[in-house]
């Protein structure tokens, strides 16, 4: 048994924010209560192995879920493996991560899904909840083997890396996924406006002479997707939403009662296109937006329009990123800095702490249609973090195989301290 003592439990699902102890037995939570109550029931139990974690000064939260990441295995193991990626996720406080299907081969059938889950099992770190492709090979033509992948363990579908190609395909995927009770996650972009672009259109792109995409490249696709969600009644989740206009569309759709959710990445709520130079660590898709976009995202995080913070952890081995800006692949790593970047918002009063916890826990769980709470009988997945621990992130010391982060050398206040998955401590700072 594992006894987590003296922590401050924040559990958005039960609206709890109190000094409580948590008792874990095997892979389940067995008790949540005031220290005296937990001590009493411990005293009444027969002697056995009992370990404890002193969580004094720490927040005890439900296990963090990352809805959006790339673990690169199978196919690009020199950039990341399931073992290194999940180790980095554990260091970031995540207890479950959802890898996108754009591996080689694409996760578009049950055998790939099973292989990913077997590797994850062997790695023995955080849980891996794969996202299956919407179309075969994510090519935007025929449907993937969605039902078989669901049986094998996917938690949602997406053609991430690219948008679901046509409104017609999206309609079919959504009709089908509604019947399977699966959320469709879309990487929203209008391909014709994005072609050739390497950053967001604005003063900085004109200054740098880099080919750019307008913000509308995203919101045009978001508008399409919302209308198809309305047509089919399927749950739509907008991946890495990055513009003010997209957020307004999601907000309006929600007000009309449509099942539309969205996620925002730490880099989009922290940086803007003004931070982009020719340093390829600032190149990702969607690209960094304007200051106005970032302000809108911060408002959406605070007011509940945004459901989840997702990392879009996208590792690329150094050689791939050490090239001209035009030639570099899109993507930044993100597991190990996500919580600390979100805590920066708490420290400058842009976000309340319980809301932050929600964005990493019940928010993403709701997107997937699963529960997430700290209560007896629930899986023993917990994230313990400090709001005040000061530290400096060094990409060279990351557990990831890749180093492509714009936050190398950044000093933080607040950090993940202990990550518990199925009752086992998989990371301890």
């Amino acid at each position, binding site marked *: 048994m594992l006894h987590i003592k003296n922590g401050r439990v924040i559990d958005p699902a039960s609206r709890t924010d109190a000094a409580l102890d948590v008792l874990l037995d095997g892979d389940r939570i067995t008790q949540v209560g005031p220290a005296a109550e937990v001590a009493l029931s411990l005293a009444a139990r027969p002697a056995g192995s009992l370990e404890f974690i002193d969580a004094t000064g720490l927040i005890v939260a439900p296990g963090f879920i990352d809805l959006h990441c790339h673990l690169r295995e199978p196919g690009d193991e020199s950039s990341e493996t399931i073992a290194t990626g999940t180790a980095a996720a554990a260091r970031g406080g995540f207890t479950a991560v959802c890898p996108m299907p754009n591996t080689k081969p694409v996760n578009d059938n049950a055998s790939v899904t099973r292989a990913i889950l077997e590797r994850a099992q062997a790695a023995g770190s955080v849980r891996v909840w794969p996202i299956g492709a919407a179309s075969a090979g994510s090519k935007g033509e025929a449907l993937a083997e969605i039902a078989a992948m669901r049986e094998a363990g996917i938690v949602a579908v997406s053609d991430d890396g690219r948008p679901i190609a046509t409104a017609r395909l999206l309609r079919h995927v959504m009709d089908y996924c509604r019947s399977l009770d699966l959320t469709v996650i879309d990487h929203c972009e209008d391909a014709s406006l994005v072609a050739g672009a390497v950053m967001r*259109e604005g003063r900085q792109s004109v200054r740098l002479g880099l080919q750019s995409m307008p913000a509308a490249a995203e919101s045009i696709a978001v508008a399409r997707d919302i209308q198809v969600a309305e047509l089919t009644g399927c749950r739509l989740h907008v991946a890495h939403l990055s513009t003010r206009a997209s957020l307004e569309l999601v907000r309006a759709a929600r007000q009309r009662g449509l099942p539309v959710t969205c996620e925002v990445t730490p880099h989009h709520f922290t940086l803007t296109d003004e931070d982009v130079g020719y340093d390829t660590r600032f190149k990702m898709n969607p690209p960094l937006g304007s200051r106005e976009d970032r302000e809108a995202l911060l408002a959406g995080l605070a007011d509940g329009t945004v459901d989840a913070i997702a990392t879009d952890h996208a590792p690329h081995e150094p050689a791939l990123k050490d*090239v001209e800006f035009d030639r570099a692949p899109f993507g930044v790593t993100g597991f190990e800095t996500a919580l600390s970047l979100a805590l920066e918002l708490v420290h400058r009063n842009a976000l309340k702490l319980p809301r932050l916890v929600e964005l990493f826990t019940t928010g993403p769980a709701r997107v997937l249609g699963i529960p997430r709470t700290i209560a007896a009988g629930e899986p023993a997945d917990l994230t313990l973090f400090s709001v005040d621990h000061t530290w400096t992130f060094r990409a060279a010391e990351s557990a990831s195989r890749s180093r492509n982060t714009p936050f190398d050398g950044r000093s933080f206040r607040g950090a993940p301290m202990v990550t518990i998955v199925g009752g086992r401590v998989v990371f301890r700072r």
Partner: protein
Amino acid sequence: MPQRFRHMLGIEPLSAEQIAFLLDQSKSFQDIQRHPLKKLATLRGKTVALAFFEPSTRTRISFATAAARLGADTMNLQAEVSSLRKGESLLDTVRTLDAMKPDCIVMRHSASGAPEFVAGRLEISMINAGDGTHEHPTQALLDALTIRDRKSALMGLNVTILGDILHSRVARSNLHLLGKFGCRFTLCGPAMWLPRELECLGYPVRRVARAEEALEGADVIIVLRVQQERLHEPALPLEEYILLYQLTPKRLGLARPDALVLHPGPMIRGLEIDPAVADGPQSCVLEQVTNGLAVRMALLFLLIGAASADSEDAADAAH
């Protein structure tokens, strides 16, 4: 004030003082171009590597000639014969070049920021000979030298730039250079090549769609080449461009009578410019080419010449 330069990556980071110094230095190299014996020994024993990853004739020959007239040797790398075709990365290609120990690398590349990227990873001096749609600093310097010769000062001139501003590295470098000397700009061209953000670069810029309006009162007209080879999808019919933006004698008549016409070349007569204008008395096109040598000689001298280059040395070297 003498100035030290390690690289020449763009005009944007330079101060007006640094630019004025470069132009003054270039003046002393102008005379050499008219001298019967044009070769100096100033850079004897030095090697200039020319790394052109994008086709270029004029700029490459200009740099090669500038190096030759200073007594330097050149190493030539051209995209057609380079290992880039075989999949080698830019950094590896340039590292190989660097291992042959040149004293500086003159680089042209189709990717914006490529010279800055390489300069950040090697010890060697780097000269940007044009990067993508970012900057072409020596072009702006030679344009400024040409304008200064004819107008005696840059301060406060009305400069009209005509053509595809968005995709022009020449336009960007000229905006930064002439903008630092208080010039006022009128940018004119097809609206899709004239983004609003050009007004946010920190210089007095007005965007005008009609050439007639843009040319009125201009002291200097920079005509850009119509770049048919890249970035222009969907294309604009050339007839449309000629109809609205070709610099004709009639349109030129709207500018100040002493207005200068500059063109970075290569120039396509009958497309962006009427032959009568290209060959007319207001055209500076050939002076620009000659001044290109002076500017590039001055730059090479300052970057890899005497370790403690100051204006005295440069003047001595030039005479």
